[in-house]
């Protein structure tokens, strides 16, 4: 095999599984080390640079990092990365003077942003400190987008939202509330240099089956209903509620129902549990509140008696699965009526752009989704950019943030007259972590502790108050234990082939058998030659240059490496070294040649 090119910035980045999996590439191990040192403010700011809303995301992020976390492969559970993000937010000092500030003067460029959700707010966060005059138009009377209208307060308190949105407002960003944009043409006529559309995917899907219209008074569209609850237009619901759908919105709907007077809430799923879209922890939180999740029930009709909803009839489904868990056959095995007072539909949502004139030059596909470049976020009309759910359909907050960062770069380039696709490349900066003989700038010992759980408010108490935050946050013991579970994957094992004398010391000491010195060969042969064959092909196989005494190569399976540094401690020639990999993710301030304030 060709020796691995570790100068490729993506090589070491991929080894940091959490950072690689995070759409915004938050340097997770770095902030966890800062927390371990008690530097909560610094940890918060490291987070904020990448993900803008650490307090919010520390509660409600979709956590793509956690399933990716190496710890989950080494033992049972990943590091509680999201919880630790909240730890940084909970324990930090005042940061309003440390976040990017309002510039002394603006650069005269005017940017319109549609919708005050995470995507638009991120664009404003990135551009306003550089001098751009950002105006955000928000239809509702509060900013935050789905973060305020759809995520219930018992998961995300309003104060947290207000504070983190407040930092962005203080940069000189104008947020115009109660200002629904009815015409893009009208907006563009006001002379903006660029328009960013971050208006979300605001249209909840309906279920047009028998009885839908007759029972309309007791059938609610999930995201609209959550919004009505959040803005206090709805304060109660029937005793028996059925939720149709098993995504995260469904989980918010069932738990919110319990807080508005329901005491018998069932979540109805068409398929078995392994096909659910909801995050496992959101399912657990709902079940913890005695929500019943019923599988293999496909909606057939709404049962209406005397003009009023009394129940729902379901088809009972049976599925045949193949070895890969794919459905090969579907059967219907009768029907069943489940009585209820209200039904909430949480079966997905769509983009909707009734306010964008179709003759402006913005092309849409046949489903009414705009054509948006995945890198630059540009639409087919120069100067108009999309991000968040409005760009590629419903995703999540952390994706919206990353879209915002990328769109901000494009908007800057558009205003400067530069090519949108000539963007700064990512980089990696390596620095030895060695502080002395067997001393490193990180805690390299392995702590076998299991994942700490989140303490919660008692069930009775939390259901009595819709706004009471359920999760209490980590206490000192939990913080101290959880930070040590992080394997510091960003402290890389860096190998210098010319120094190796093939003594096998590193192979012998490796606690997870991820090293071998073998004759060179094809990748499959090399993967099979390790004591524990490297079967996880999602993880890279490092291959060194030929070694000087035998011409064999050092190989390393990145899959289970603990980053404990024992290979480097055992190496007599320092051919192995532990080096801190700082992954450079360019933002618009880097593009603009300015040093970030944070």
């Amino acid at each position, binding site marked *: 095999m060709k020796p691995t090119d570790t100068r490729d910035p993506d090589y070491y980045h991929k080894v940091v599984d959490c950072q690689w999996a995070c759409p915004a590439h938050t340097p997770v191990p770095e902030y966890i080390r800062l927390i371990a040192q008690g530097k909560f403010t610094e940890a918060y700011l490291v987070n904020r640079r990448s993900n803008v809303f650490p307090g919010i995301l520390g509660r409600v992020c979709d956590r793509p990092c956690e399933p990716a976390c190496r710890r989950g492969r*080494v*033992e049972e559970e990943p590091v509680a990365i999201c919880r630790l993000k909240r730890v940084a937010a909970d324990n930090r000092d005042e940061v309003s003077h440390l976040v990017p500030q309002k510039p002394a003067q603006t650069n005269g460029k005017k940017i319109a942003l549609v919708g005050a959700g995470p995507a638009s707010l991120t664009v404003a966060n990135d551009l306003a400190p550089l001098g751009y005059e950002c105006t955000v138009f928000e239809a509702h009377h509060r900013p935050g987008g789905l973060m305020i209208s759809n995520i219930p307060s018992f998961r995300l308190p309003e104060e947290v939202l207000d504070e983190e949105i407040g930092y962005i407002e203080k940069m000189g960003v104008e947020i115009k509330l109660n200002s629904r944009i009815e015409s893009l043409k009208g907006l563009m006529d006001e002379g903006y240099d660029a328009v960013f559309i971050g208006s979300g995917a605001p249209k909840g899907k309906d279920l047009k089956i028998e009885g839908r219209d007759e029972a309309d008074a007791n059938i609610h569209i999930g995201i609209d209903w959550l919004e009505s609850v959040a803005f206090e237009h709805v304060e109660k619901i029937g005793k028996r509620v059925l939720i149709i759908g098993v995504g995260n919105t469904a989980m918010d709907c069932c738990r919110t129902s319990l807080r508005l007077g329901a005491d018998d809430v069932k979540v109805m799923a068409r398929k078995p549990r392994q096909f659910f879209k909801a995050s496992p922890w959101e399912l657990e939180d709902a079940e913890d509140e005695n929500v019943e999740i019923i599988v293999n029930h496909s909606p057939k009709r709404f049962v209406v008696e005397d003009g009023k909803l009394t129940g729902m009839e379901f088809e009972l489904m049976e599925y045949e699965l193949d070895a890969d868990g794919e459905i090969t056959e579907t059967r219907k095995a009768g029907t069943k009526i489940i009585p209820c007072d209200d039904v909430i539909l949480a079966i997905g949502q769509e983009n909707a752009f009734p306010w964008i004139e179709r003759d402006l030059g913005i092309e849409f596909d046949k489903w009414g989704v705009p054509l948006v470049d995945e890198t630059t976020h540009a639409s087919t009309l120069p100067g108009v950019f999309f991000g968040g759910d409005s760009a590629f359909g419903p995703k999540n907050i952390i994706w919206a943030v990353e879209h915002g960062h990328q769109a901000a770069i494009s908007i800057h380039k558009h205003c400067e007259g530069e090519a949108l696709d000539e963007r700064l490349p990512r980089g990696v900066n390596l620095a030895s972590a060695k502080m002395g003989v*067997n*001393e490193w700038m990180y805690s*390299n*010992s*392995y702590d*076998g502790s299991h994942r700490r759980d989140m303490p919660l408010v008692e069930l009775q108490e939390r259901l009595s108050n819709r706004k009471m935050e359920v999760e209490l946050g980590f206490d000192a013991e939990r913080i101290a234990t959880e930070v040590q579970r992080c394997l510091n994957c960003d402290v890389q094992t860096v190998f210098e082939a010319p120094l190796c*004398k*093939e*003594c*096998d*010391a590193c*192979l*012998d*000491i490796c*606690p*997870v*058998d991820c090293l071998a010195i073998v004759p060179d060969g094809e990748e499959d042969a090399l993967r099979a030659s390790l*004591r*524990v064959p490297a079967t996880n092909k999602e993880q890279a196989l490092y291959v060194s240059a030929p070694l000087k*005494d*035998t011409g064999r190569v050092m190989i390393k399976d990145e899959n*289970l490496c*603990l980053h*404990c540094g*024992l290979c480097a*401690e*055992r*190496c*007599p*020639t320092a051919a192995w070294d532990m080096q801190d990999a700082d992954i450079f993710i360019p933002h618009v301030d880097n593009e603009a040649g300015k040093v970030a304030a944070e």
Partner: protein
Amino acid sequence: MTSMPKPFIDKHLPKNELGLTVRNYEGVMSTLCAGCGHDSVTAALVQAFWELGLAPESAAKVSGIGCSSKTTAYFMGQSHGINCVHGRMPSVATGANAVNGDLHYIGISGDGDSLSIGFGQFAHAIRRNLNMLYIIENNGVYGLTKGQFSASADIGSTTKKGVPNEQTPIDPCIQALTLGAGFVARAFSGDKSQLVPLVKAALKHKGFAMIDVISPCVTFNDHAGSTKSYAHTYKYYHPLVHTDFVAHAEEITGQYAEDGAMRVTLHDGGELRLRKTDSDYDPRDKAQAIETLMINDGGGEIRTGLLYLNEDMPDMHAANKLPQTPLNQLPYEALNPGKAALASLQKRYR
């Protein structure tokens, strides 16, 4: 040495027939220098014992004094063991073997412990054909006393400061052959593909099985003037024969392939398959073995592998008609036949 013990993680590892992973065969944290060949020998032992499915409580580790003799602490932490007086390990092993022939005896020694202070003990353990695995971790220097030449240092090999050795080396393999050992091998800590099967075969050999392992001293004898450095050994490394140990020969006779391998059945039913890597080497020919090693003297090549094997020699237990039952399992009456029996015995000497 490292700053901490190796973290114990074994959920990814396969288990042997005892339900143990290879990690269960490790011992305490090594305090040898980083890069010491002895740590690799330890790793090879751990691997071999795991592969054999050796019950840790069925093994007794014996050693004397030296860097090499420390290594018994670094494997099979659940086994019996004694770390005894310098050069006297063979006597302690003899005593232990005499009273309990059921255990697997694993002796770890070094070139100082076996070829200088313990040379006589080493020779007589071979003469007695003590049933044990005897490993010499051979690095040509006294590492524990900062790098003086040992008795195995080659003529012309230099100290770290460049002073050459002028005394004739003792070759433990030639010594073992002339003293009548039935299993003589040479290996290198840097080649586990050879060492691991040799360790398995040696442990299953009934009688004295010696493996002389070239195990570089990374601190005092791994420089350009050394003939026992990693670089030198890799350069002149020459395996004569490759050994595979196959447990339970009866299971594999059906797939008897004509691969040209010599097959030797061991006492417990295991089989050794010896593949020549050199043109004309037969490890059953003692004269050829001695000749090969003698000619090699000064020629540069380090000839390794199973150099000599003879399965047809009675071990100490058999030759001396020692009780098959370990003494600790004999009833008190058998161990202490009483005053009358003592009187009758004494009468014979009057």
